[in-house]
Each structure stands twice: as C-alpha cells, then as structure tokens.
C-alpha cells in the first residue's frame, strides 16, 4: 500500500517558482496554460499487512504535522492499494 502526499503552497500564498515556470511555458507558446503551482510529492510505502484505517490516520497525521508547514502550505493524499 502506498500513499502519495502532494504538498503545495496555499492558493493565497504567492508561488514565485510556479510563476517562473508559467512565464517560461508562455514563452514557448503554451498560451493556454494560465497558471502553474509548483509543489512536492512524497511517496510513502507502508508495510504489507498494515491496517488500512490505521494507515490512513497515520499518514494524515504525518502529512499535517511533518510534511506540511500549515502557515504557508496545504496537502492532498492519493492512495495506491
């Protein structure tokens, strides 16, 4: 079982890296791409036989308390069973 945690700056926080990527894409002619947000992805591999409910609780806690700085970032989790 794997969890993919995506962490990105909150929508209300200016993302200069995303802006720079968007500007580069625009220069390359990709005019349809109006906005880019850059973040990071953590791939968490859980031991076989881990209780799914417990795993979800644990991964959510890790995402909230360690992988994200709640002042500026937010996260989402995708599961691959």
């Amino acid at each position, binding site marked *: 079982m794997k969890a993919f945690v995506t962490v990105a700056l909150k929508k209300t926080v*200016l993302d*200069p*890296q995303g802006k720079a990527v968007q500007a580069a894409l625009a220069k390359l002619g990709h005019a349809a791409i109006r906005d880019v947000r850059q973040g990071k992805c953590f791939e968490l591999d859980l031991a076989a036989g881990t209780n799914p409910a417990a795993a979800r609780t644990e991964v959510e806690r890790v995402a909230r308390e*360690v*992988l994200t*700085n709640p*002042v500026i970032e937010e996260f989402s989790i995708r599961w691959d069973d």
Partner: protein
Amino acid sequence: MKIGVVVFPGSNCDHDALHAAGALAGQEAVALWHDSSDLQGVDAVVIPGGFSFGDYLRTGAIARFSPVVDSLKRFAAQGNPVLGICNGFQILCECGLLPGALMRNAGLRYICKPVHIRVDSTDTPFTQAAVPGQILRVPIAHGEGNYTADAATLAELERDHRIVFRYCTPTGAITAEANPNGSVANIAGICNAGRNVVGLMPHPERASEAMLGSADGFVVFRSLIEALAASPR
C-alpha cells in the same frame, strides 16, 4: 556569563557565533550539540545560521525534532534569551517559538550581500543597547528569507511592536527597493510575545568587528551582555 551556540548537522555559522559571543563579547561560549537535551547551564542560547539537515523537507523542518529543541522550548518559556540567526530564525518559526514562516526569496535567488536594517524595537535582550531607529549595516546570506504570516499575526506583531528589525535604505527609509527578499512589511526580524526570543535573517555575528567591514551587528551581543548583567538567573 555563559552563552550556548546550538550545533546541528549542517550548521555553518556556529563558529562565527561562538567567536562573537566568546572572543568579542568576552563571555564563556560553548557549543551545544543538537542531539543532547543538556543546555549545560547556559544563560542564553544562539541558534546559528547554516543548512541544518541540508534544509531537506523545508528549512528548519527536521531540526525542530532534535532533543535540544525541547530543552530550548522550556528554556524560552522560563523567559531566558534565545536568538535565532538566519537558519536559526527558520528553526524558531518551524518549532513554533516564533510565528509565521520563511519562504523562498521573491526573486528566487540565493542572496549574499550587505544590507541595512533598522532597529524598530529596543525592548528585547538583543536590542536594548541600540538606539531606537538605529541603522545597522549587516550581511544577509539566504535563499529562503521571505517572511510571511497571516493577517491576524501581522496585525498583532505591529500592534505589540514585535517587529524588531526591518530592511531599510542607508538612511532608514522602509521602501520596496530596500527589501531584498519580498518579506511582508520589510520584516527582517521579530520577537515572541515574551520578547525574550528573537529571530532575524541578517547575520549580526558576521558584522561584529571592524576587520570584517562592519561592527554594527555587535550591538546585538552587547545588548545581550547588558541584559544578562541586569537580570542574573
């Protein structure tokens, strides 16, 4: 007086801080390894600059789980002086001793150059020997110094005069041009509600003797010595 300088894997300004607090300020300065919770009976703690744990995950994000940080939280809660410089400021924000966060510089570049900062509060143990509004020429050296906080926190910082240093022009004006990294309200340093924990991105320890081009930053250490002498533990 005994001043401790915390050393994490990746700290690289620890010896500059030890030199400023020891040889220059004439105090006993000791290194405190991050993996020990023993603060060795120090009177004040400096968290130096560098790249603790390679700045992986986020700047200061892994350092905050070191045993020394729990001791530091108790030490700070007792009202003792704690100074975070550069990566030390980032660690203080990550561990919750100071509010807000330090993001990637608005210009995306690592910046290493002398800047001017204005002392906007002398009501801290690290600025009490300065004159209100005093302008210091000190270097910055960071890629993530863009201070931000939510509107309520900022309003509280302004109201309680907890913005200790702001980036300014050589004559002390607070302008967008004088702001090197995009920090909100030109914030270069702040303090906690108790005023004993101060964090700043510029490096006063690197500008503490004339030989280094500026001794302006030494007022931070002179303030600390005065503060400790005035209220011994």
